[in-house]
């Protein structure tokens, strides 16, 4: 008997599975934060989570709404100043994985969180880069999680806020002291990895029940599929339970603070 779950749950659970106990993860807010904490509450209890607000090795009981919620600080090993966070901990080489979300991603895994349209006359102004531009180059590798649609998966991003592999897939070649870049992208439909040679994002696994056509339809370029295409394992009951309890606790906590 198979369990019922949403594609969003499938995404979070798959993203969580990418993290292992020995990783030190610099966590972006939103989907990455949900996945990272789910990992910590399931198979990777000792994964080290770091938020750019300065909280080192934090273990929040509910998901933070912002990157600097009190919960993150209260449950952290210690909290450092933000310049120290970016200088010593990120640039200093202590982060194994940067876990990012994005508004747009292109076939070379470049991320745009700056704007849609022209920089000086934006159609939509987005929040901006935040920590991502340097997380993407100073972390040893980068995981990305984002909902799959033609709006997000574009052939070329309008603006490279955060480099994946550049406009030609070669942006990291011969650059000293730079991480490997995006190694996996997890969506609500599938898992993508950069082709080892060209760095173009390629579908390596489809989530249960998802067809190639759905992925093609939701992607703004002629998406490639790996020769041997895996099927992502379905969520386990434990994963679903922990995720749902986490989200319930979180909703109750944030609602409970209304004046």
């Amino acid at each position, binding site marked *: 008997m198979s369990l019922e779950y949403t594609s969003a749950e499938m995404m979070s659970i798959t993203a969580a599975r990418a993290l292992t106990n020995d990783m030190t993860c610099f966590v972006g807010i939103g989907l990455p934060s949900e996945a990272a904490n789910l990992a910590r509450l399931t198979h990777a209890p000792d994964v080290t989570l770091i938020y750019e607000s300065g909280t080192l090795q934090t273990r929040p009981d509910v998901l933070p709404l912002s990157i600097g919620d009190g919960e993150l600080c209260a449950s952290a090993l210690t909290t450092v100043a933000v310049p120290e966070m970016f*200088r010593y901990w990120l640039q200093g080489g202590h982060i194994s994985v940067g876990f990012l979300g994005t508004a747009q991603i292109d076939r070379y895994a*470049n991320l745009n969180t700056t704007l849609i349209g022209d920089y000086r006359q934006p159609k939509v102004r987005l929040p*901006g*880069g935040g920590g991502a531009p340097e997380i993407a180059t100073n972390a040893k590798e980068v995981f990305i999680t984002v909902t799959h649609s033609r709006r997000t998966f574009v052939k070329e991003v309008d603006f490279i806020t955060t480099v994946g592999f550049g406009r030609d897939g070669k942006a990291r070649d011969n650059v000293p002291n730079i991480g490997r870049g995006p190694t996996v992208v997890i969506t609500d439909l599938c898992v993508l990895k950069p082709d080892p040679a060209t760095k173009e994002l390629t579908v390596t696994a489809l989530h249960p029940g998802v067809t190639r056509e759905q992925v093609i339809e939701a992607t703004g370029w002629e998406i490639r599929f790996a020769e041997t295409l895996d099927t992502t394992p379905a969520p386990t009951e434990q994963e679903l339970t922990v995720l749902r309890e986490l989200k319930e606790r979180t909703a109750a906590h944030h609602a409970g*603070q209304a004046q």
Partner: protein
Amino acid sequence: MAEFLSLKEAVARHIHDGDTLAMEGFTHLIPFAAGHEIIRQGKRDLTLIRMTPDLVYDQLIGAGCAKKLIFSWGGNPGVGSLHRLRDAVEKSWPQPLEILEHSHAAMACAFEAGAAGLPLAVLRGYIGSDLPKVNDQIRFIECPFTGERLAAVPSIRPDVTVVHAQRADRQGNVLVEGIVGVQKEAVLAAKRSIVTVEEVVDDLGASVNACVLPSWAITAIAVSPRGAAPSYALGYYERDNAFYKRWDAIARDRDAFQSWLQENVFEEGAVS
């Protein structure tokens, strides 16, 4: 030595039209009360500096106080856009807003360099990003020892910095604790500084390596209980996450925003 002033007096005396102003706080200890006082006093043409401009900057921008914003992430954390910021950038309402955009790493280093009295910060940053194409303040230098190409940005040295902190002692020494962000750097980098505090106490109760700003490194202190609400002050009150969510609807609509401003800043805040 820091001078104890009312918030009204501190803002009147130390923040001038046209100033570069950093109101720092990384989600925690956002100086909302001071921001509202700036709006009430009708300050104009400010260049606002902050890594994470959030609701208080949205309010300042919507109220017409700002001509320029220097920032690295301008959103309502966990909720979405800052609609007043977007309206200013996209539609020039209530007036055009020039923006100068960095990454967090660069701004954090620029504050650090400002506190360190240096004209520039050096970092391994902006590799492959389009940001240097739209921000001419981002340059690249070559390391004289290794030849590595590194990013350089000007240090940040605001005319005035405003931060909120937990408490001051009677001599005007201030304790900041929890998520301390770049508050210390922002104060030390500035020509003048205003610190709002929850309370004044006899003894700070600071641990041996606590983040304490000495009185002689601060220009003015204003007591402002709940001065960081709806953000939070560790040990005093929690973040009102529900308000952050509600702000989305308020800020989406110019009229709703103006009504909110009238009621909550011009009328209600003026008496406090």
